């Protein structure tokens, strides 16, 4: 029987993979994917809580998170395109004009 804990553990694993991806990967597209992974883990959490508590609010929350995630992905890719036009690279190590 799959219970709430299974879902929570899975979503925690997804979250950690996402966080590690943002912090450690050098390819900007993979970083954007990792951010999506974090949002997916949030959604999984919300749906699991909502399902096991018989409470629909979590599912409403998921709709909002999905919508915002779509907008954010569009915006992130647009920013990436303008950056690529000037930099001609999608490696974060090349994004180093600003330093203190």
């Amino acid at each position, binding site marked *: 029987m799959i219970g709430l804990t299974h879902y929570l553990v899975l979503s925690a694993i997804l979250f950690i993979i996402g966080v590690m991806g943002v912090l450690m990967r050098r390819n900007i597209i993979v970083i954007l994917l990792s951010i999506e992974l974090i949002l997916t883990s949030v959604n999984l959490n*919300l749906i699991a809580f909502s399902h096991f508590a018989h409470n629909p609010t979590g599912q409403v929350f998921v709709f909002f998170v999905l919508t915002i995630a779509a907008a*954010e992905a569009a915006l992130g890719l647009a920013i990436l395109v303008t950056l690529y036009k000037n930099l001609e690279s999608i490696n974060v190590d090349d994004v180093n004009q600003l330093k*203190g």
Partner: protein
Amino acid sequence: MLNILIPDFRVIAPELLLTATAMIIILWEMINRTRSHAVSANLALVGSVAALAATVASWNLNVSTFGDSLVLDPYASFFKVIFLAGLILSVSLSMKYIQESGVRYHAEYYALMVLATVGMMIMAMGRELITIFIGLELLSMPLYILAGFFRKEIRSNEAGFKYFVLGSFATGIMLFGMSYIYGVSGSTHLQVIARTLYRHPSAYADKALLLGLLLVIVGFGFKISVVPFHQWTPDVYEGAPTPVTAFMSAGPKAAGLAALIRILVEGLPRMAQEWELIVAILSVLTMTVGNLTALRQTNIKRMLAYSSIAHVGYILIAVVASVGGRADLGFSAVMFYLLSYTFMNIGAFGIIVFMKREGIANENLDDFTGLSWRSPGAAIAMLVFLFSLAGIPPTAGFAAKLSVFFAAIQGEYYWLAIIGILNSAVAAYYYLRIVVLMYMKEPEKELGKATSSPLLWTGISLALVGTLYFGILPGGFLEKARIAVSILLKV
């Protein structure tokens, strides 16, 4: 049930005004193709002044609407005044800067600034996690675009990119925390969360709730640039267009703190002993790292970025102080500090905008050498803003710091107050260094000719008046903040 069916539009009147303003700015430019910066900027100013009037007119209301997800209380109104003041000042600084940069898509610039302000206002009013999240995103997305607004300049691209990655990363962390708070309490409404936890005190021992709270604090910590989540701040502040930097140094931080305080007070009132020590440590780290790093900056925008980090540290002292009995003193000090900071910091950025001549930014500290000989007016204004940032009377910064340290002493956090005062002494060094450069050294090199802009000077004068007014007569607004907080605490 009735308030779900019929929304009370008085609550969101300023937001509706601002949204309409943003639409009109874009449509006006699209239809008329005037290429006139003055029309867009003036429309934005008219809209924000109207929204400010609407906010002040509904100051004493304490009503909620849209199924109790938005609440207009004096606490929200106070923050809305901060956001609108920040918007008006930033728009005044923008026109000359954006005009001289020669971008053709200027209408979007003003529209995005106005929309970001709507997001802040929704955050301050949100009494429910989904609403706060929507407000946060409505605030963040325009700011990502604005930071990377000069799309042909690689530094601006980089600022936008870094802000986007770390901003959405922070949103993800915060949402993950919110999902745990929802899971433990079964609701996203702050008051329902508080009631559920009150009825089931055993839930406080739930590690998931604590994890949720910590992740929410980390998420907001990124947004308001708390050490150790501050690394993006100097880069984004340096790379973004200067008026945008001014805008995002004031309002968005106030919005983050407004929502965080509302979550802590209304949603998780009994968790204070859990976050007290964590926030206190973050506060000490934030002040110290911010000030020590600011000491060795040579670019003034980077220096002000680290200084803004340090100021968040002082504000967190007041947040911690609210735990010790007199919560109204602590939180009202936070609000008054943010109000003062908005005026003095945007004012200082106004002088940096003024320094830009013939397309050259002149952002290094050396460029301020002998400013009092070249432009005495700008030097005096900068002097007041720097004194205020350093916390020297009779300026707003002094009154704000005094209220923070007073709250810390009343709450018996003497060690925090002492660390804060020591930090202010360190900070005075790098602020006063610029004063020395401006007044005690002859100009070394010629800067280009300054183009005069009445709107820029209006903005700087407004900031100057605010900085001196809150310094000389802080009582009125401090009292307003205290009343607003006591209404919030009674709920």
